[in-house]
């Protein structure tokens, strides 16, 4: 028997039941759909744990084999196990867990975001050197215009014509048009991908087909 047959049957049956239950106004089908979604949520939670287990296994094997970056992997494993130990015993609202969030997660996330300010500036400069065509120039002109109209400049303050007229018009007309086109494109892509999965044309179950 082909290994993808059972997962495909599950995917089609579950997907179809959830879709039908969400579309048709029949209470029984709706409650089946809600029940299936709740089980899906539980399974997604377990899938996250499987993913974290895989992360642990990969780094543990790097430490055991003393591969390059083993020290970094050891750091990750110690941090993971310490957080898990405190969290499992005390729960996510334990004071030490809050310290982990405030002292490690938030500062590192904010610092990585702050790094983006430098890397984006560098990328914008490189864009002009690498590809100085009209699209790049228009893109960078809009970036500069947007920044000038969003902040209060030293000695000048806000530039009224930019902040009161140009930026709102751009935002509600051409920029909204472009973004709406992108959003519709993404939604159409998600719709087609979902339908391809439900019709078994795509089988993303991890097995080699």
């Amino acid at each position, binding site marked *: 028997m082909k*290994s993808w047959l059972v997962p495909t049957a599950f995917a089609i049956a579950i997907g179809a039941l959830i879709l039908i239950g969400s579309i048709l106004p029949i209470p029984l089908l709706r409650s089946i759909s809600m029940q299936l*979604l709740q089980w899906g949520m*539980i399974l997604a939670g377990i899938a996250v744990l499987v993913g974290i287990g895989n992360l642990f296994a990969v780094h543990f094997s790097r430490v055991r084999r003393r591969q390059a970056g083993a020290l970094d992997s050891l750091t990750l494993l110690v941090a993971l196990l310490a957080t898990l130990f405190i969290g499992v015993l005390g729960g996510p609202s334990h004071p030490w867990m809050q310290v982990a969030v405030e002292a490690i997660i938030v500062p590192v996330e904010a610092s990585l975001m702050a790094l983006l300010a430098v890397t984006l500036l560098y990328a914008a400069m490189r864009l002009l050197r690498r590809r100085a065509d009209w699209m790049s120039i228009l893109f*960078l002109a809009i970036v500069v215009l947007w*920044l000038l109209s969003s902040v209060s400049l030293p000695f000048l303050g806000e530039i009224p014509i930019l902040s009161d007229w140009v930026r709102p018009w751009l935002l509600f007309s*051409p920029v909204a*048009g472009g973004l709406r*086109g992108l959003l519709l494109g993404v939604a159409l892509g*998600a719709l087609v991908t979902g339908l391809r999965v439900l019709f078994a044309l795509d089988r993303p179950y991890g097995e080699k087909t």
Partner: protein
Amino acid sequence: MLNPEFLSSLVGFLLTVMVFSYLFGDTPLFRFAVHIFVGVTAGYVAVVMLYQVLWPYLILPLAQAPMLERSLLVVPLVLGTLLLMRISSRLAWLGGPAVGYLVGAGAAVAILGAVQGTLVPQLLAASEPFDLIALAERGINPLEALFNGAVMLIGTISTLAYFHFGARRQRDGSIRRNPVVEIASWMGKLFLALAFGALFAGVYLAALTALVERVQAMLSLFGW
């Protein structure tokens, strides 16, 4: 004894300096900070999953809920156990049905989200500037609204045309897109440049705000 708040700020300061060391390249300090971050975040996510998903929706009902509800929970329990088999490379195949379940549920949610959450609301919003009665009721100048709506609609259609890659073979053997689609695609490029420029500026402003916040947090540690 050290104040826990000060200790937390000090650790945050050190990690910030380590992350900023990336400006000089992929330094060991940066890698150390990032690995601590990934480890702590993974641990935190696991704890949140245990306490806010598995405990209230699976473990607690299995122990306390009425018989019927308990027997229904056998399904996610069995599928969840099969999913755990994917950690082992020899038993990974047992997790197939659970993965199929997740993929099917994900596909259904993606379809519903795309239709109900994006396609219908965005199409309704695109038609709004052309509703002259509603515009008159709200006291909006119809000419201005129609012009802005037309620009937006051209932007939406031409952006979609930019991502249309269908082409036909011509009599001379060359493969070309329809000329109308070609022109619309060129216009779509223009609208995309504007949209991406605005997005880039928005992200840049958010990054600058984060930079200012980090510098302020670092200075406040020394009482500045």
